């Protein structure tokens, strides 16, 4: 495709250049849609740079069994995505799927986990994701460095992880070679639907497109109503600690600890309602570090070299939102907490639906924001 940045007309304008928007835009570019990505600048809040980088299945879907199936599908398609991105850009995003653990540091934690997994499994239509509940000795066979405080844990063979910073870089590089226009510093102020097309006002002028995809994370909350959609969000703050690089000792990712392909150990999992990402709650860091070293006493020897807080993109009930506008045909909203895990579904499933102009409700109808009109859906507990 030979359109240039001087053109301000596209088949599709994707608003948001994080993991979700970029994955959809890449999927659209692959199908020959003239696509642009309207992004903010480097200083914007970006969950895509703050996340923990798990490709995670276990425990997802309590309250919405379709979410389990959707997540399992992503876990099974991730290697196809990483292969295609590598072939196109030469960048290896280090996707691995050895399975993943969740460890318990008391009998009560293990019992709570067992109960919540049973409730998840007993839902009508739940996908079986082959989770195992293990005691200390069984965990130790796979994770030889666990400490005596580890009572047991759960293992799911579908879990994995990826180098998500490298994926963000790779997908942006792939956008370029696929002819998708990435337009940073294009913060969107208004979207109007007129004469069958969308007129999008940005800080650098007007963009026109036949279709528009909202993928702006928590900011979808304010954009959605401009095109007859809604996206109720309740962002939370998470904190992450990173150690210096060390020799590989952890062959599996955990919900709260993982060792990256480059050797650093990431420790995460906090959640607060307070959403200022310019400060950190140090007592929370202390608890996270303490739990991590009880799980793996050898972590005591390592220095923490970095910590940060980030704001999660979080739909109000924890489940993804994929919806299309009835009043402004061609407008779509996409939000989810798990932009890393679900990336292949966004590229290979959602993008083709958007290219065709209609979401396939058989497959993603459960994720419509109309669910918020009805009964209160229970929170997913997103890990």
């Amino acid at each position, binding site marked *: 495709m030979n359109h240039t940045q001087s053109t301000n007309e596209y088949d599709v304008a994707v608003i948001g250049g994080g993991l979700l928007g970029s994955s959809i835009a890449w999927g659209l570019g692959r199908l020959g849609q003239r696509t642009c990505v309207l992004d903010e600048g480097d200083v914007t809040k970006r969950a895509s740079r703050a996340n923990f980088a798990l490709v995670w299945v276990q425990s997802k879907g309590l309250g919405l069994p379709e979410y389990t199936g959707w997540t399992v599908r992503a876990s099974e398609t991730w290697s196809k995505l990483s292969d295609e991105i590598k072939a196109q850009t030469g960048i290896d995003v280090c996707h691995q799927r050895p399975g993943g653990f969740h460890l318990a540091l008391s009998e009560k934690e293990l019992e709570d986990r067992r109960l919540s997994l049973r409730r998840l499994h007993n839902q009508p239509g739940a996908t079986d994701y082959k989770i195992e509940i293990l005691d200390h000795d069984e965990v130790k066979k796979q994770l030889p460095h666990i400490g005596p405080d580890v009572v047991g844990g759960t293992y799911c063979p579908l879990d994995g992880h990826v180098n998500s910073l490298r994926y963000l870089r790779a997908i942006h590089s792939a956008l370029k070679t696929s002819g998708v226009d990435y337009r940073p510093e294009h913060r969107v102020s208004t979207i109007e639907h007129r004469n069958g097309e969308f007129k999008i006002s940005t800080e650098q002028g007007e963009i026109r497109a036949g279709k528009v995809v909202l993928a702006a994370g928590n900011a979808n909350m304010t954009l959605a109503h401009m095109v007859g959609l809604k996206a109720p969000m309740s962002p939370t703050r998470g904190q992450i600690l990173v150690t210096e*690089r060390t020799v590989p000792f952890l062959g599996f990712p955990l919900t709260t600890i993982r060792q990256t392909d480059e050797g650093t150990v990431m420790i995460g999992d906090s959640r607060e309602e307070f959403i200022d990402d310019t400060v950190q709650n140090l007592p929370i860091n202390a608890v996270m570090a303490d739990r991590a070293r009880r799980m793996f006493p050898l972590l005591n020897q390592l220095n923490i070299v970095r910590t940060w807080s980030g704001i999660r993109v979080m739909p109000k009930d924890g489940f993804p939102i994929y919806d299309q506008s009835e009043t402004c045909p061609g407008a779509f909203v996409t939000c989810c907490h798990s932009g890393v895990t679900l990336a292949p579904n966004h590229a290979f499933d959602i993008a083709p639906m958007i290219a065709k102009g209609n979401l396939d409700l058989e497959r993603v109808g459960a994720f419509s924001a109309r669910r918020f009109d009805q009964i209160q859906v229970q929170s997913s507990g997103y890990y």
Partner: protein
Amino acid sequence: MFKRATNHQEPAVQITVDGLPVTARRGDTVSAAILTAGCVEPYRYTAVNGTPRAPYCMMGVCFDCLVTIDGIGNRQGCLIPVSDGMVITRQNGKREIES
């Protein structure tokens, strides 16, 4: 490769580098002591790609002087003065941890 200035009159300090005894001078940084000991091996190998490196800035900025000192890894050798009996291990790639 490196030679001491001839007017260097500070007292000797005994350390070990990779198990070998090295005589440094009071006031030397760990990096200076390793470099002047005349080791032919590269100073270190990086943690991700395993490429050979040596201290570059010698003032705490570049982190290319990382070594293990008395069992604690990834310390900046250019900022830490030698002391008697100090045990220094150079890092060949990622830092080791013991279980």
